[in-house]
């Protein structure tokens, strides 16, 4: 392991950036995903203080940091561990610390329940489609914001950000009225549209920062040797902005994947995705079923977060939320 303070700082930054992302998705219905997303940095954070004790004397300051890390680790891992235990529990009654018996029966149950299987399929259909539509709509806007003196670009960015700062349910109720009028309620397109809302802020801010960080001379140079504007975009600009766009697409994917409120309002009963299914599982089934489903729901989050770890650490995400 390298320099300890650097490692610590990276871990802290990662925790803070990922937390920002999780909060901004407004995915409070699926707490499991937020914990899943932060699992990676937490692992790093927990590892970091160990060699510090070996190399340097234990000062009160260092001890406080170590304690803080421990609390953070418990805070993040505790619920996740509890969830895992429940997913494999047969019988578990208070005040026992561990389940009295273990069972895989709820896993079997979930995989044999057609409605649940269908919701998994739907979630994995909506998320990629929403991500792609979001990219097609937002990337040109992000490029324009980064490259041209668009009037009110700053206001636009702030408004996009602010739209995520308020409780969405109010917004959705209003939108529902509009969707009824446009016959979008209960339609596939309606669900895509409502899920799109939560992805716009990532798909605009982060790629805009990536585009802006590409020196204009690189594009000029390509035009100079004969490339048209369009070709310059696809052969120079896009490849160079790829890390930022990649991070944005992952966050958009997760935002769509976790979206429950809007999908519940617009999609039910035709389109019940995994997070929406969680509602009925929590209310109608024993905790084991919900736990199994929550574990399933957090798998893509963890996998994708591991995938973009490099880019998140590389600062593409942090850069995206610097307002210029």
């Amino acid at each position: 392991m390298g320099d300890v303070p650097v490692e610590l700082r990276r871990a802290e930054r990662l925790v803070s950036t990922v937390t920002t992302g999780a909060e901004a998705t407004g995915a409070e219905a699926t707490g499991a995903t937020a914990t899943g997303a932060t699992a990676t940095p937490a692992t790093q954070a927990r590892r970091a203080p160990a060699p510090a004790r070996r190399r340097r004397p234990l000062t009160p300051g260092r001890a406080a940091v170590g304690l803080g890390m421990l609390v953070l680790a418990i805070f993040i891992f505790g619920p996740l561990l509890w969830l895992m235990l429940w997913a494999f529990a047969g019988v578990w009654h208070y005040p026992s610390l561990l389940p009295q018996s273990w069972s895989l029966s709820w896993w079997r149950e979930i995989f044999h329940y057609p409605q649940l299987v269908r919701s998994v399929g739907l979630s994995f259909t909506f998320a990629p489609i929403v991500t792609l539509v979001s990219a097609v709509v937002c990337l040109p806007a992000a490029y324009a914001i980064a490259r041209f003196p668009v009037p009110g670009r700053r206001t636009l960015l702030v408004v996009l950000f602010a739209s995520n700062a308020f409780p969405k349910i109010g917004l959705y109720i209003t939108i529902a009225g509009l969707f009824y009028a446009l016959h979008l309620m209960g339609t596939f397109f309606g669900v895509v549209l409502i899920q799109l809302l939560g992805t716009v802020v990532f798909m605009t801010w982060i790629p805009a920062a990536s585009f802006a960080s590409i020196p204009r001379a690189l594009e000029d140079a390509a035009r100079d040797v004969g490339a048209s504007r369009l070709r310059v975009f696809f052969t120079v600009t896009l490849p160079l902005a790829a890390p930022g766009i990649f991070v944005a697409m992952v966050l958009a994917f997760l935002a769509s994947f976790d979206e429950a409120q809007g999908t519940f309002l617009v999609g039910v009963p035709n389109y019940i995705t995994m997070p929406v299914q969680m509602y009925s599982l929590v209310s109608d089934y024993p905790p084991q079923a919900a736990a199994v489903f929550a574990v399933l729901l957090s798998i893509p989050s963890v996998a994708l977060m591991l995938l973009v770890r490099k880019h998140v650490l590389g600062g593409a995400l942090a850069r995206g939320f610097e307002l210029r």
Partner: protein
Amino acid sequence: MDGLVIEHLNKTLGNRLVVDDLSLRVAPGDLVCLLGPSGCGKTTTLRMIGGFLQSDSGTITINGVDVTTLPPERRPTAMVFQNYALWPHMTVFKNVAYGLRLRKLARPVVEERVVAMLGLVNLVEKRDRHPSELSGGEQQRVALARALVLEPDLLLLDEPLSNLDAKLRVGVREEIREIQQRLQIATVFVTHDQDEALTISDRIAVMSGGRIEQYDDADGLYRLPQTSFVASFIGSMSTVPGRVVDAGLLLGACPVPVACPALAAAPEIERGVEWSVGIRPEDVRVDTGGSPTATVVKEVPHGHFKELLLRLDGDDTTVIRAYVGTEHPPTGRVAISLARALLYRDGHLAHEVAPARPVVAALSAR
């Protein structure tokens, strides 16, 4: 006319007139420098030639074709950018090949031309490296190769040496000049470094405030700077107020002889008026004998020569510079005379006072 012809070019950026009615001709095969301080409009002019900026008015013609309104991809120009602007996600080979591939040439042809060009800039063995793995000088050469491989009619260089360290700069500029002469390609080179401009150019356009002050070769520019701006910008020149008398000049209140026998018989130089007298330091003779007229106030070593600051008698503010050898530089009271002097009025050169060409009356543009 062939080559680059710019006529009455204007450009306003913000509220500032950056390029002001600029006209310039670059003959085929010539290397022309746009030289001037920052903000003089030289880069703006270059970007208009390359097509990255649209001029407000005026025309740009390259080899007889009016390119004024063409976008950069349709101009026969190739530019080397100040920071090289190499594409970091492509190898050296791909950087150079990019433009050729756009022209839908067969793969072997592209390969052959890129390798030949990399050979010219000595980078064949680095073809599969990425720009980040190259030194500054190598990146510079890749940028040059990328521009030249398209065989443009006009090569544009935007301060291409400003990011190299001083030693490398001299080597690379000679290399650029050598390649440019070998390919006989018309070139416009923007720089704020007079040394760079004087050493590699066929002609130099000295710019100030969006205008060309003087367009001349290095010799003419140095020997006969047509305006006081050029005089102060190129080389070192002392400028002091003075009058013409039969024996020479009266600088301030101090009589200074000039080695110009015909001066006394040159009535076309007005006597009663005050001139702005420009004196190159190497034209000042400093003697310890004779009747002293000046005092050495400071001695600045420059390695192989020394620079003296001389305060002329008569008033305390008139100071001129002189270059002397390093052996026994004069100190204290000295007698001075001039080999040559330039007379300016209203910022423009009016007369040269020199022995070879006793009196040159108002010089017309060369």
